[in-house]
């Protein structure tokens, strides 16, 4: 126990902070401000430097090469934003999709088919690996600026379910987070969406992602390290990858999650997944923004194995029914297991046919859905 000196008396007799203390505080203040500014600037510079190659292209053939990275890492792939996004004299078709569109060269094949048909359509690829409904939403708001002839949302059922959480895909992926905070996006996102989906925590997390895009850099740079160090060690020394992971964990993506969780993730549990409780509201908001901007929408259920249930189509169709310029097409019946690497990604040999099916569905939707008034952009 201390002596019973009056604490107030202590205050009055205490030595006031010296000039030295003030100097430390002032130095610290400016140091923190400068460090923050440098960190933000450096991160954006690195992002600018690294992020244009979201999918490598084979220089010989010009084809996009797949980069198969495990899910569960933030922003594993950036959405490809084609340079010629709105070529003059062509009708832009904006494609929102997942890893299949982003990494399997499907969009490039569809563009080839369009060229063969006379070159009236220009496909703009905004696909993002592992995209969920909330990512589609952010990408859609960004895409309506291009005034596309048609907005295609290629999806699998899981994208509309919280089951993605089990696959360690956070509900708001980095890219969608950051895009939501772009000034042109945040003005178009319905207030009900932000109010319902964002908490203080997710909002601040997104704000940090916008200011300091470490999540995007993280994955890209890890991937470079992975390619540069990890596989050479495994391949040249012929060491079991599990042991290398233990001894040299740096280049491995989400080591502990891979190790502890995913190995045991019960596949059968997918059958118990349910659509987002707010699916109806999400789709309604999505379609409303498109309607306000006079952009027709095609929800295209990709070819996928039956275990990728639950079937969200009934709920999706019900939500889309009130909208005249929204179509829902189901291509699941075209799934043939031998033609696919896994439950959704087609083998190289099957990709031409895959692209042709999607191209045909898009053409059919274009016939059914009347175009909006050219250049019309309303409902801001």
């Amino acid at each position, binding site marked *: *126990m*201390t002596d*019973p*000196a*009056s*604490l*107030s*008396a*202590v*205050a009055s007799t*205490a*030595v*006031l*902070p*010296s000039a030295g*203390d003030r100097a*430390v*505080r*002032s130095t*610290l*203040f400016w140091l*923190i*401000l400068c460090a*923050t500014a440098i960190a933000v600037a450096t991160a954006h510079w690195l992002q600018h430097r690294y992020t244009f190659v979201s999918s490598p292209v084979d220089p010989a053939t010009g084809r996009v090469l797949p980069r198969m990275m495990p899910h569960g890492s*933030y922003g594993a792939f950036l959405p490809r934003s084609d340079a010629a996004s709105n070529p003059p004299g062509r009708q832009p078709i904006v494609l929102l999709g997942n890893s299949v569109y982003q990494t399997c060269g499907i969009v490039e094949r569809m563009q080839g088919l369009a060229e063969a048909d006379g070159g009236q359509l220009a496909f703009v690829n905004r696909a993002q690996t592992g995209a969920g409904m909330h990512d589609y939403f952010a990408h859609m708001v960004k895409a309506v600026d291009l005034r596309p002839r048609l907005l295609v949302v290629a999806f699998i059922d899981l994208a509309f379910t919280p089951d993605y959480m089990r696959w360690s895909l*956070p509900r708001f992926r980095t890219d969608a987070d950051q895009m939501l905070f772009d000034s042109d996006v945040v003005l178009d996102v319905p207030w009900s969406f932000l109010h319902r989906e964002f908490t*203080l*925590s997710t909002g*601040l*997390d997104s*704000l*940090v992602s916008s200011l300091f895009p470490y999540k995007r850099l*993280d994955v890209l740079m890890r991937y470079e390290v992975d390619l540069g160090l990890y596989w050479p060690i495994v391949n040249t020394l012929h060491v079991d990858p*599990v042991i290398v992971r*233990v001894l040299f*964990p*740096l280049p491995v993506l989400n*080591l*502990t*999650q891979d*190790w*502890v*969780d995913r190995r*045991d993730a019960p596949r059968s549990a997918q059958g118990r997944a349910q659509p987002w409780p707010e699916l109806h509201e999400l789709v309604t908001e999505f379609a409303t923004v498109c309607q306000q901007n006079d952009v027709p929408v095609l929800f295209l259920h990709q070819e996928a194995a039956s275990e990728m249930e639950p079937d969200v189509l009934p709920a999706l169709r019900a939500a889309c029914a009130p909208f005249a310029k929204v179509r829902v097409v189901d291509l699941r019946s075209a799934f043939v297991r031998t033609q696919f690497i896994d439950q959704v990604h087609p083998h190289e040999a099957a990709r031409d046919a895959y692209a042709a099916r999607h191209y045909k569905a898009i053409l059919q939707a274009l016939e059914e859905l009347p175009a909006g008034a050219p250049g019309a952009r309303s409902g801001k």
Partner: protein
Amino acid sequence: MLFNSWTFVFFFLFVYLAYLRLGHVGQNRLLFGAGLVFYGTWDWRFLGLLMATTLVDYWVGLGMAGSSSPKKRRLLLAIAITTNLGSLAFFKYCDFFLDSLVGLGRLFGIELPIVPLGFLLPVGISFYTFQELSYVIDVHRGAVAPCRSLRDYAVYVTFFPQLVAGPIERASHLLRQVVQPRVITWAGVRQGLWLIVCGYFLKVVVADNAARLADRSFDAPDGTGADALLGIYAFALQIYGDFAGYSNIARGTAALMGFDLMVNFRQPYFATSPSDFWRRWHISLSTWLRDYLYIPLGGNRRGPTRTQANLIVTMLLGGLWHGANWRFALWGLYHGILLALGRLVRPAAGARPAWWGAVLWPLRVVLMFHLTCYGWLLFRCNDLSQAVEFPQRIAGNFHWTDRASLDATMLLWLAIPVLLLDGASELAQRLGVAARFRVGQTMLRLVAGLLMLLAIYELGVRHGKQFIYFQF
């Protein structure tokens, strides 16, 4: 607002930048406002409760200072204790006792028409209640003078680094620092940063990764003995990393602002006896229990039997402080019995040569660690049958599977840095070398800090669990 969230990082950055530009009074106003925001982000509705108990204790403190009548001072103390313990009992233990009553009734075939009230537990209520109680009791004892400034007293209660999970500070230590102008030094900043890095490392790398192993083991009904043993070890690592990590971050953020919070953990798994363990584990709680419960009960002044009883009662109540559940009570009782037994088998000083102690030291550390681990089994088990079933599995069905081997490897990699950090501190303290190698220590800390940052980046669990002790 979790420490391991960007919300807190942003919050602290803004608060700290403003703090650095303000004078003493402005800093205290800022800290009070920051404390309210910090607590309000958990649940703003409980701010009223926090403020109410703060006002009552402040008023009681002033009242006791203005009165020379022992009777009036006792009455004021009773008001404060009733208010603080009453709110704690109401929010934390009410449903527990009602449930227990219903359970007891069923034992005798009586169905009591009692429905649990279902109140939410205000986060950190056990911590700030004990901190406030220590103030009014110390004022009553004349150990500290009452605080005349409501703002300063409110900062003492709502100081955000330690508001929701301690360390449980005393007025003689923290309030004094609130009242005085703080001095920020480069040494303090370095120490603060070191503690913060250590804290985040312990939480997001060690505790959150160990939690996955522990949860899987405790939730697997068909695991082997090896799985059970690894689960208990993993939980021992998890709870230490979680709570010591929180305490380190709290102390580190406070140190950046020129505050010195008390040390809450001192290499607890290097303890050699039950009493040694409680001198190292959750020190702010164990000293609180000693000063405000064990000693008033009579301590060791009333003979060996009464001492043992006092130890057991104190630890039983300390266990219940952790949570309204019989397994916490059992955990407390277990530690009380260990402490009582520890006193019985304590060798007389000088009975054996010094080298004998050195030889026995590792054995005593290992034995105490495993006794502690059994306590953690009581603490963590999903139901009390697991406390019996796990040891049976370990004794009767112990074999290594591939998964257990992988888990053991991972656990080892998580434990090694903790052993190195704590082992180095233990060794430095035992040999007294810390002060002599200050430059070397700084360089070592720099290297270790960078490695820990790398580990946080590479291995840290994003969107990790909330701190275990927040539920208390």
